[in-house]
């Protein structure tokens, strides 16, 4: 059972991002390609809107006008900020707890055997079930919402980090031991750097998962946030509103990925190039 879970793990292999980063050559040439693909997307969208000429697919101009209006009324920034705050807290919580449990399970075989069943259970409970139960047990509040999101993410962080903790190089740990390095220095400069690829893989897959679950949580039981707004637009059949929020949201994800995660990863894996 255990092996099956590990094998079918859907998260990316830790080595992959670094290798991809090394192959990335000529950023300027690729920048053009990225821009061209964006323009092509908008053109296709416009074409579709013309062809179907339907209420259910408004053209890009309408959606951008809607973004401007929602931004001017401060509705969009407010709801976006609320959602981002929930994402940040849930992400931090899931990464910290998941990494701690993963390290412990990778280190102590007994603990691994003890918790492995729970882990399989955690990996396979549908997000919706966790959310509903958290709301029922802890009430319709932000704490319940964040706990629900974190609970969904923690098991995948644990599995990824546990792999890393199992792969820790005992020979390097011996160096720390032989020179009697203080515990904190051993952890920060000898142990943790070995887990970085795994932590980065967990962070990337974690961010994309948490975005999605936070919206569901908001839709089901919060009275603000992007998920709440989407639900309202759905009931009003306001497709322009839905697309406006979705676009801004996707843009924020891209910016976080490009401005935070990728530079961080490049910095941490500098020594490999």
């Amino acid at each position, binding site marked *: 059972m255990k092996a099956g879970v590990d094998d079918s793990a859907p998260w990316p292999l830790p080595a992959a991002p670094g290798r991809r980063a090394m192959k990335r050559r000529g950023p300027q040439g690729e920048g053009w390609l990225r821009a061209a693909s964006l323009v092509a997307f908008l053109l296709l969208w416009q074409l579709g809107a013309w062809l179907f000429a339907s209420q259910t697919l408004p053209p890009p101009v309408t959606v951008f006008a809607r973004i401007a209006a929602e931004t001017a009324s401060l509705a969009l920034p407010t709801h976006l900020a609320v959602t981002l705050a929930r994402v940040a807290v849930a992400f931090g919580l899931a990464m910290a707890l998941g990494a701690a449990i993963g390290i412990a399970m990778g280190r102590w075989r007994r603990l691994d055997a003890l918790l492995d069943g729970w882990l399989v259970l955690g990996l396979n409970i549908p997000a919706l079930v966790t959310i509903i139960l958290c709301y029922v047990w802890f009430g319709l509040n932000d704490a319940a919402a964040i706990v629900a999101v974190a609970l969904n993410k923690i098991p995948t962080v644990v599995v990824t980090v546990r792999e890393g903790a199992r792969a820790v190089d005992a020979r390097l740990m*011996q160096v720390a031991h*032989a*020179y*009697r390095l203080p515990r904190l220095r051993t952890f920060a400069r000898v142990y943790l750097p070995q887990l970085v690829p795994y932590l980065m893989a967990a962070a990337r897959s974690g961010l994309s998962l948490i975005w999605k679950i936070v919206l569901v949580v908001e839709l089901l039981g919060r009275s603000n946030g992007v998920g709440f707004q989407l639900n309202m637009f759905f009931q009003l059949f306001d497709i322009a509103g839905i697309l406006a929020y979705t676009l801004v949201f996707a843009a924020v994800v891209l910016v976080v990925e490009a401005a935070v995660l990728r530079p961080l990863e490049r910095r941490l894996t500098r*020594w490999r190039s």
Partner: protein
Amino acid sequence: MLDIAIDRKTYPDRAGAPHLALAGLRLEAAPGEFVCVVGPSGCGKSTLLNVVGGLDRDVEGRVRLTGADSAHDIGFMFQEPRLMPWLTVLDNVLLVTDASPTAQRRARELLTAMGLADVLDAYPGRLSGGMQRRVALARAFVIEPKLLLMDEPFVSLDVPTANRLRAMLVEQWQRSGATVLFVTHDLREALALADRICFLSAAPGRVVLELPLALARPRAPDDAAVQALHAELLARHPELLAGLTSEPHEIQDE
């Protein structure tokens, strides 16, 4: 003064059965003495160093290092350089010291003395095997060790590189006054380095012969004097490198 008395040291082999690695091993080293330990492979040489270095505490016996304030005064050089690939050359050396300006200066001086002044900020992955070992040597001496444990640190290097590293080791050792326990299976290397050689038997390892050397330094493994001594030694004890002496009464047993 280093005083080692290991009555029994076992460790579980692959099948889980206890394997007796060392038994009745007595070894002493005077302060500042360079002692080489030579023995056949599998005789427990690495195990001996791990016990002395405190990496392995599951042992019947004792290791005493008088004159040292604490275990912090022990430097260790492994068979592989074992540098942290994510730390620069300088940070690898500083890793094992405190961050004081004195330590910083000493680290830079050592690295410069070893011809590494140009690569202080490089990552180990970019260095050749010989350079990586020089960094590991600097890391061992930066703590100003009372005792330096070396586990075949110069294997798998080409001959000129290994000779250069041995010369650097001897130079730093003479400057530091550290006691060195140097494990090797290469008798010529031991003859080129040591004040005294202790020959171990096959497992379970114990000292079967102690050989004080009075050869002048500097010496190299291919010096005529070293070669002559090597030949003479093997003529007297043909099975020495397998851990057997021809005159059993020479075993030092007090």
